[in-house]
């Protein structure tokens, strides 16, 4: 089986989860991170659905954290990237970088 390719929003969710780390990445923080960085209005329901899909694909794993008072005593569902997920992120960004190629001066450099 080849490396999974990610859709745009899936990639954003994966990158946010990667940045936030396994102890801070969950639906609310991921949506907020994407909103802050991209300026997009992000529906949490979309993040929730995307995380479910990514989990079904075997790209992320989830676990329940500790109960927290600001959540009415309920735990967060924390997200961590699996090796396959990390590989998918790499493959997708690599593909984007390859496609941008010498168009960097038109679309901007991809770091």
């Amino acid at each position, binding site marked *: 089986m080849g490396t999974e390719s990610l859709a745009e929003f899936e990639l954003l969710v994966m990158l946010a989860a990667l940045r936030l780390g396994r102890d801070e990445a969950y639906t609310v923080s991921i949506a907020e991170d994407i909103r802050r960085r991209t300026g997009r209005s992000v529906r*949490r329901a979309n993040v929730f659905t995307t995380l479910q899909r990514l989990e079904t694909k075997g790209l992320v794993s989830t676990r329940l954290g500790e109960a927290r008072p600001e959540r*009415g005593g309920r735990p967060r569902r924390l997200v961590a990237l699996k090796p396959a997920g990390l590989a998918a992120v790499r493959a997708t960004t690599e593909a984007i970088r390859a496609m941008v190629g010498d168009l960097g001066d038109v679309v901007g450099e991809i770091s």
Partner: protein
Amino acid sequence: MSAPRCAVGLLKRLASPDLTDEVVGDLEEVHRARLRRHGRVAAWCLTWLEALDMAIALVRARRREQAGEGERGGRSRRTVGVSWLDFKLGFRMLVRYPGLTVVGGLAIAFAIWVGAGTFEFVTQLAFPKLPLPDGDRIVGVRVWDASAGRVEPRVLHDFLVWREDLSMVRDLGVFRTRSRNLIVGDGRGEPVDVAEISAAAFRLARVAPLLGRTLVDEDERPGASPVVVIGYDVWRTRLGGDSAVVGRTVRLDGVPRTVVGVMPERYGFPIAHEVWVPFPLPPDVVALDGPAIRIFGRLESGATLERAQAELGRLGRRAAEDSPETHTHLRPQVVPYAGSILNLTFSEDVPAWFSWQIMSSNLLLVMLLVLICANVALLIFARAATRESEIVVRNALGASRGRIIAQLFAEALVLGGLAATLGLVATGLGLRWAYGVVEAEFIELPFWFQPSLSPATLVYAVALTLFGAVVAGVLPALKVTRGLAARLKQTTAGGGGLHFGGLWTAVIVTQVAVTVTFPAVAFFVRQDREQIRTQELGFGVERYLTARLELDRESVRSGGDTTRAAFLEYYGATTRTLERRLEAEPNVTAVTFADRLPRMYHAWNQIEVLEGAAPPPDARGHRVGSASVDIDYFDVLATKVLAGRAFHSGDLQSGARVAIVNQPFVERVLGGANAIGRHVRYVATEASREWSPGPWHEIVGVVPDLGTNTGYGRAGIYHPAEHARSHPVYIAMHVRGDATAFGPRLRAVAASVDPSLRLHDVMTLDRVIDDELRFYGFWLRLSVVVSCVALLLSLAGIYSVMSFTVARRTREIGIRVALGADPRRVVLAIFRRPLAQVTLGIVIGAGLTAGLASLTYGRVLTARQTAAVIAYAGLMLGVCLLACLVPTRRALAVEPTEAMRIEG
């Protein structure tokens, strides 16, 4: 505070157990963050939206899961959801059944129009939003008097303390409304509502003037030259839109003031004002003294209503400790500004439920929607019944009952969606019209009432449409799809099928009853209007110029005496002077005064006659209108005394209790007997039914009917009164030539007598009922629209039921005729049930009409009116018969062999 309980419950219900903690926890976390950032109402709305969004995501996830299981299990599943194909079919149905489209569409559009319009209005009433920059941070400050159970308005002393010490509310200011004569140049005065207001109001409103400047703090200082800021409409209408108006002088009740600025169009802070002058702060203010005022301010940045209230509460407790004799029972409160204006003065807490109670008035309109959609459901059911074969076959081919219901729901939704669009367009126009009518005829609405549709109203209209589609689409669908499997056998065997059940019978009977009742209401309103409009008074009413004379009590301080008696004394002297000066005018031949003029609405009073009264029309006794008039009133109005005598000066002496009655009084109360010398007294008034009986009055004269309209007939009593025994009174003067043209001169003479004497409603006597006629016209138009919709729906419903009933029995008719039955008996047998339904509806409707006439209008139907109701009922029956005619003729014409082949 937790997320809305119902939203949490919704998610708990939809999420699988392993997801519940996640989705509910996320919702709680986000809701609490929103509460801090946006406040309670916004957080509540946003969280609900998010919960609905998440609910949809959960349902989709569950479907995907089920679909996956289905595929894995190799099972095929019947889908229930609504597809685009259903909507396409819905559009096709609109074209194929144009009658239903037009009738049903117009009816639903009407329901949405009324429902959405009412929702918009009550939302603006219950949850007002000020159209000013950061308007939601503008607050009112009021003082609740716990011992008296009311708002204490004399709080100028406390205001001055708070202005220094209250840190959470800035730009604190006060205002009060005064009615003043605005006199521009030529000495002609017209009353305007003036806001005496702190300059802080303009800083708080953050609205730049159109010309010049707003009021500033310097204008409030003692000795400052008097200035005025005027509104856009006053500038245009009274000052001719003069672009060089700044610096001009106008007079308010005789006080010259320099115009320093003009505010832009629609600016009306604090309520609906158009003239603003500085608030005159008295030099010494003591607690609970001074004028009645209202206080406003703006929450300091970062402050909340709760924190401001906490600070004000501390100041209130401090005042109670410092001045226990005056402040122990006073509770200062910070409340949303609009709420502080809209008369919420009856309760210590402006309770949250109060707003929701106002909103609950929408329920009535939802009931109207249900009634209308139930009618549309009837039509859709009849249409669905004609497609019975198609539905049965679709079911046999694999479509589930849910799928078929979804299709009929989609069809109703398409109809409802188009109707809602039409209804919303009408709502936008209707609001503009209604606000215009209210402002022109009744009261000036506060400036935050805007005749435009808010997003909340649009969402509400969508919800109404969905609800209407459920009633109009799903209910008939449930009925039509019941027992599909059994019907498959019947259909293939050629047996019977759908029938209208008890529910539909109830719907038909109800709508016929409503259809009979609504036009009757319109008829009563029209009759009242015509009675007032066409009443002949027997003299040239157009030659009399009339006006209402008002004087400000606070501006009158004769010798320092501020009692009402002193005020009335001064008012009487002023009107006497006015009378003398007017009588000296060459064009004026006579002047008189009264507290009510002919043909105006007169407050009713319940009376008792010493002996020999005719039996009253009902158990509530005789009700008559009354008026206090000058002793020369009937002479000036050129009214002949029919019996006895007119008033004379001796009637004004104390102890002389005399009255003159009109001809309708003689006929209705005395049964046509001689009135002179009889005695009459009041036993209850419109204001208080618990009133103890008053003294007896001797009837000394009888005059013709001059229009004492009370809503209970025209019987009336006149009492002699000196000038201004009450305030205000009306002046009526006979003028040579064009009476209207004398209006400006009248104003000038009044201004020369006392600049603060205000003349309202200067018009000829034939026009004094214009306002009343417009009011009746408004109700008449509304009643006619409602009646037309009810009639249209009812007739369409009856027609569809009749057509359906006869069409369903075509086979039976054919067979009966083939077996030799008399066609007339066959037709009668078929008509029996629908005719019984219509007749029952008409009987109930006629009963309702008679009851309504008796209870609300206090009268019984005359023979002519009864005949009109019967004729109207006959029309309904005629339409009913017409509806049967076409399908019956078709059924009778069918050959028996063909009838046998027709589906049952």
